[in-house]
């Protein structure tokens, strides 16, 4: 039978060999990190975004690269999924986007009224820059998010809408604007996919006219005081383009 000293030798030997292998692999891994994480794109904005991420323990609700808590959405690919426009609007007032659902903390440093317009805008932009950078890290294929719904939605809807009506044959430029706006709207609406936070917009042109839609987008609460749709603060040109598009949804 095995003696105690043989057992001890097994313990010490195994530990030393495995620890040595682990240290060796660590050295190699660390050497690869700058490339795999695209450190060349780590601007001061990205680093500031990461500081915001850790200082406020966002990981206490969300996961990022699959790590954190399981109360709020996985954010590794959030930039690809939502885009800059949607995220900018969302961070200003997170609870407005998902009323009566799980709440995100409303941070002062994203609130123009609390820290000033410039400061809030910078904090939001840096947070988004951080997510954009994280999305590019080589995670051996992990995205945590097979659902790229909103983006596919606009392609389909734009194709469908543009086809039958000559008026709506949007230029490539226009389509790009629409696509960036769509990322904002699709957080709450679908076109033919059923109601989410807001109503399904299929056939919206049959229900409202240009004047009403313009007013609604510019200032939702003047039409319906208790609406959950936020004022997106869009420029007149953007609103017009958007309304033109909505009027094709018959």
């Amino acid at each position: 039978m095995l003696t105690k000293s043989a057992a001890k030798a097994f313990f010490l030997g195994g530990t030393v060999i495995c620890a040595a292998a682990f240290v060796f692999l660590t050295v190699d891994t660390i050497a690869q990190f700058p490339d795999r994480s695209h450190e060349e794109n780590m601007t001061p904005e990205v680093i500031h975004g990461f500081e915001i991420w850790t200082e406020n323990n966002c990981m206490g609700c969300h996961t990022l690269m699959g790590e954190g808590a399981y109360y709020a959405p996985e954010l590794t690919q959030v930039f690809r999924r939502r885009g800059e426009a949607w995220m900018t609007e969302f961070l200003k007032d997170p609870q407005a986007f998902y009323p009566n659902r799980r709440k995100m903390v409303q941070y002062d440093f994203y609130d123009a009224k609390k820290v000033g317009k410039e400061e809030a805008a910078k904090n939001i932009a840096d947070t988004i820059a951080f997510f954009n950078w994280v999305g590019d890290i080589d995670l051996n294929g992990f995205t945590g998010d097979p659902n790229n719904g909103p983006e596919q939605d606009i392609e389909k809807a734009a194709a469908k809408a543009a086809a039958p009506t000559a008026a709506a044959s949007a230029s490539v430029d226009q389509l790009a604007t629409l696509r960036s706006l769509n990322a904002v709207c699709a957080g709450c609406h679908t076109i033919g996919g059923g109601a989410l936070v807001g109503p399904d917009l299929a056939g919206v042109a049959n229900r409202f006219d240009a004047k009403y839609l313009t007013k609604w987008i510019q200032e939702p609460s003047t039409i319906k005081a208790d609406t959950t749709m936020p004022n997106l603060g869009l420029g007149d040109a953007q609103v017009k383009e958007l309304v033109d598009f909505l009027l094709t949804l018959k």
Partner: protein
Amino acid sequence: MKYKSQKIAWYFFAACMGLFLLQLVYGFIMGFAHMGMDGLHDIIPFNAASATHKNLLVVWLLAGFMGAAYWIIPEESGRELWSIKLAWVQLASLLLVGVTAVIGFHLNWWEGRKFLEIPRELDFLVVVNVLAFLFNLLMTIWKGKRITTTASVLFFGLLSAALLYLPGMITFDNIVFDSFFRWWVVHLWVEGVWELIMGAIMSYLLIKLTGVDREVIEKWLYIIVGFTFLSGILGTGHHYYYTGAPGYWLMIGGIFSALEPLAFLGMAMYAIAMARKGGRKHPNKIALTWTIGCAVMSFVGAGFLGFAHTLPSVNMYTHGTLITGMHGHMAFWGAYAMLILAMIAYVLPQVTGRKRYTDWKAEWAFWTSNIGMTGMVGAFAVMGVVQVYLERKGGMDFLEVQEQLHVHAAGLVIAAALFTMGIVLFFMNFCSYGMPNDETLGQED
């Protein structure tokens, strides 16, 4: 109780009880939030509750290890503790750091690093505290009559746990580095050096409770901790699959972490075999129940449920879902929480001088908490599997899936209520023994 200074262990255990109960309060806050009842959101948002729940767990387990060490080391070394004063200072400062950290979490003073949310400033205090603790043990061992295997494995485990805390204190501005070294602490603790501590405490308990020869038990201790490090060190790779590290970790982490359950299986088989073999009928049956329970449940939680999501092809889907929560609960409960409770159950009659070994409260505490925890883990499992299928495979939106899970979260809370009843019974039993005294002083158990 052989030495007067061993009494200090009781005070550490009392601290454990308080912190543990507080941990459960925060568990309920999160359980209700998962049901959609987040009324406390404005005062205690989910991230504050989760940081508190996890850190109180770590702090009470550490306090438990310290109490256990202050009990075991003097006895194994054959002398009084080197400095009882230092032990008191150390207990007080540990509690101070813990309470300060928890208050800080409610005031947005923390770091977003799961399990290590305690801010860097306090980390330094933790280090000083642990150094004082280790120094006290070392002096006791040094000046003692003998150095046993159990004592040296325990000390080596505690020392390595302290050293491994250091990589977690480095600051990085690249999240990939930050995450990589966070696992040096979290993984190498629970699947490495804490298992050494567990093996040593378990050996001590088995020697006392079963009467099997020390040489036999300590031989197996070496084999088991040998398996732990053989698999657990490179098994760290199961956290490096999808967090920015190179692809070779998929294979290395997959193979070695898949072997980790062997160490837990070994521990369970060893505990059961020793209990059967032992000729000694120790009157403290409930302590033996907790000891065997710990060995078995750690295999279920860490070994079986850990294996369930450790292969890279599975982890691709389960990574970052409630499946991890399922495993985390049973693993921490089985391996470490039950270990401390076993130690408390063993120490209690001696340190208070009451030769009362079983009681309905003690028995019910064991069964109610274990059945409750099994129910909780079942609820987490259902939530996790549904989440994986609807969200990761089906592509449904995160929040919509979570709404489907409200009913299962209610199941979690009900099971947690049962679990909590068990822990409250344990606490009532603990209190009913009264304060520590010198009645059994000098008696070898």
